[in-house]
């Protein structure tokens, strides 16, 4: 009898422990599933992810056709992924595990070295398509009597390669890629302005953001000085800004750049302080985007600075963003020179500086030609352009076909 009572007691204890553990597991598991369901069913859909820098997929409209061909399900899955509850928390958790448990030094192709983020290119690129474009471009410009230059900015991994910053297991083909690009430029007979001449021996922290792939506006300003030096012979009376003409301003709050968003926060040691240079008397230019309809913008779009979100891309301060075509005109022209800049986003701060030197500066960005129909050679010829200046960083292997299509 006594033994039976003891046995009942043991069973009762086991049941109680089992009940507690089962309850925790049930609540934890089912709670997570049903919370996720409730957020999707009743929560407000997010339009944009600042951390990912893109629009988020929205719940699709169903129709018999889209259901039968499966596109509704595809769209639904995209929206379910994008609208999942606490999306960025989960992404950061995964990155935390990857870094701290699995000891993975790199995430999404970005590595942190002494708190500075780099995205080395592991394989050498071929620039044959760009090489063909350069030759075609030169021919067109020669026929039109327009001069041309290529200002080549060293990308951040090139700087790291030159300084031997990458650990031995990191393969970086960036230096070799840059060499190949320069070969193509020189083969085509386009004068090369190698901005590494000016920037190469400066401390990296003065030239590049820690958490972004772009150069700092201070680095861009040094590059602007070298470009103006190269253009001096052709445009001797164009005024050149010096550091004394500029006021350095900084933005309150942290700046987490493109690499920080790619690698995710657990890998980011500290944010950047975002600074920019503004002429002491203020900018003297005004900007039109994609034609003559959308005008009155500034080379420094300070609306960007009002966005308080953690991952606000402050680099969009320069020119507001990237556009297929932008035209910067001095409100009180100092000369009637017209420079056409063929560019990527590295050029954006430089455009503002060039705008203070030339009466008109146009910028074409082939990556966005789908948004605005324009031809490089037609634009140069029809707008009385005096010189075309490429301002690119050296990671433009993918632009060859776009340039050829856009010529």
């Amino acid at each position, binding site marked *: 009898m006594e033994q039976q009572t003891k046995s009942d007691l043991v069973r009762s204890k086991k049941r109680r422990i089992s009940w507690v553990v089962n309850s925790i597991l049930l609540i934890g598991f089912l709670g997570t*599933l049903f919370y996720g369901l409730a957020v999707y069913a009743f929560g407000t859909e997010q339009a944009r992810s600042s951390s990912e820098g893109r629009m988020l997929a929205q719940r699709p409209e169903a129709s018999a056709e889209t259901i039968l061909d499966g596109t509704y399900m595809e769209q639904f899955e995209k929206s379910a992924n994008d609208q999942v509850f606490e999306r960025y928390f989960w*992404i950061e958790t995964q990155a935390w595990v990857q870094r701290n448990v699995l000891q993975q030094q790199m995430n999404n192709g970005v590595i942190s070295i002494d708190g500075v983020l780099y995205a080395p290119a592991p394989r050498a690129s071929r620039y044959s398509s760009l090489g063909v474009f350069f030759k075609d471009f030169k021919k067109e410009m020669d026929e039109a009597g327009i001069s041309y230059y290529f200002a080549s900015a060293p990308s951040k991994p090139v700087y790291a390669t030159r300084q031997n910053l990458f650990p031995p297991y990191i393969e970086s083909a960036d230096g070799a890629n840059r060499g190949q690009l320069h070969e193509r430029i020189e083969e085509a007979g386009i004068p090369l302005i190698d901005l590494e001449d000016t920037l190469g021996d400066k401390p990296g922290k003065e030239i590049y953001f820690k958490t972004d792939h772009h150069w700092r506006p201070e680095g861009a300003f040094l590059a602007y000085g070298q470009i103006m030096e190269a253009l001096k012979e052709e445009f001797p009376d164009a005024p050149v800004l010096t550091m004394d003409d500029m006021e350095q301003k900084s933005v309150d709050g942290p700046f987490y750049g493109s690499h920080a968003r790619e690698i995710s926060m657990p890998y980011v040691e500290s944010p950047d302080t975002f600074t920019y240079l503004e002429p002491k008397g203020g900018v003297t230019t005004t900007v039109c985007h994609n034609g003559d309809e959308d005008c009155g913008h500034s080379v420094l779009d300070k609306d960007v600075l009002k966005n308080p979100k953690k991952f606000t891309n402050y680099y969009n301060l320069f020119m507001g963003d990237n556009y297929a075509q932008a035209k910067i005109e001095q409100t009180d022209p100092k000369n009637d020179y017209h420079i056409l800049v063929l560019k990527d986003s590295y050029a954006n701060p430089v455009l503002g500086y060039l705008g203070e030197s030339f009466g008109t500066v146009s910028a074409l960005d082939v990556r966005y030609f789908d948004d605005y129909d324009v031809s490089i050679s037609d634009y140069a010829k029809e707008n009385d352009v005096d010189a075309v200046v490429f301002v690119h960083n050296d990671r433009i292997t993918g632009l060859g076909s776009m340039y050829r299509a856009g010529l």
Partner: protein
Amino acid sequence: MLFSSTVFLFYFLPVVLLVYFVSPRWLKNTILLLASLFFYAWGEPRFVLIMLASILMNYVFGFMVDKYRDDAKKIKWTMSLMVIGNLGMLGVFKYASFFVENVNSVFGFSLNDPEIPLPLGISFFTFQAMSYVIDVYRNDGRLQKNLFDLALYVSFFPQLIAGPIVRYQTVADEIVDRRETVDDFVSGIQRFVIGLGKKMILANSCGYVADQVFGQSAGDLSTTLAWIGVIAYSLQIYFDFSGYSDMAIGLGRMFGFHFLENFNYPYISKSVSEFWRRWHISLGSWFRDYVYIPLGGNRNGAWKTYRNLTIVWLLTGVWHGASWTFIAWGLYYGVFIMLERAFLGKWIAAWPAWFAHAFTLFIVIIGWVFFRADDFTYAIDYLQVMFGLHGGELFDQTAYFYIVQYGTILVLSMIAATPLPKYAVARFMRHEVNTDRPVLAVSAGLARAAYILFIFGISISYVVSSTFNPFIYFRF
């Protein structure tokens, strides 16, 4: 729909669980059937019709074999028609392009590739449906007169598109009469979460490495990198498939079904025969019970035994995919199993255990090269690199990078592929039933709950972080 997708985890599963458990008993199978058809239709709606046709065909065959069981002539015809019907359907959808390609190649014809798309999981549901008819014929399972219940057996979403191949006799009773319990449900949660963790944390990480390495031309690889790639792939395919099986078994248990195990630590095997008793057990036992033994097994002398083994391993290769590399992979195993039967098995038994383990792993890893390669040329080139016969480097910077970047996950995966973690957890968890020390018992229980929920959280983080995540076994 993938188990490791937000759609499944946060929409499909909670809705199905809610509707299922609030429904009256008589409605539960209908709920599961509708959920399963929805699950299947989610990916490719038109293929539901093919699965329904397969169900209907085998439903009729079930009645026929039950009726003609004692009529030798009719039952022979019925079973032949059943095999032709099922394999014909599988052949048309899975092997038509392969057949045309080879006919064109051998006879110089220029027949057009029919380009018939492959319905998800057709190999799995075809084999399950055949298992139903054969089990009814053998009286291993009773005739299912309710078409919807048979449809549920064939289409039940946990095992529908990537197995395990659940034989009819395993679940015949539970389809008709089952009881869901809290203990089973919690056990199902644990199993599902472990499977999700295997898939998301281990398989996908190893898979990334394997994809990067196998994505390169074999000539660009160093010997070390080639070994890293194939080891990563060996781990990926194990955790991918066994993780999926765990999730299927766990989900089944939540709804009161008890599926058989599909994996039993295959990489600790000491022979190729043992490996196949531990790897994809449901497929191996299907071929054993429905092909090998009916052919005579090992009962009619050595020659017929080897003939039967050749047929089984040829079919095993063909089942995995319409490609000569899969067929070679199947026959590769067939050869080793025959050699083990002939003499190698005795040798291996005499070897030290560690050497037998190493030898078996070596054979298995080499086999995965054929399984992973797109064609023979790549497989041979890759093997040459693995053995340093390509005249290239032994070690390079890329191999160094993969060791530094993925060394931890690869080592963790290797450990997780052995029973060591299971033993460690079991050793700790035995305190949970130690009622003399209630604090220890409660702590062990709480640790178990925390461990499962931690894995669940980390797995969700991997699910959310990934956007494209197909299971390897989907197209088989």
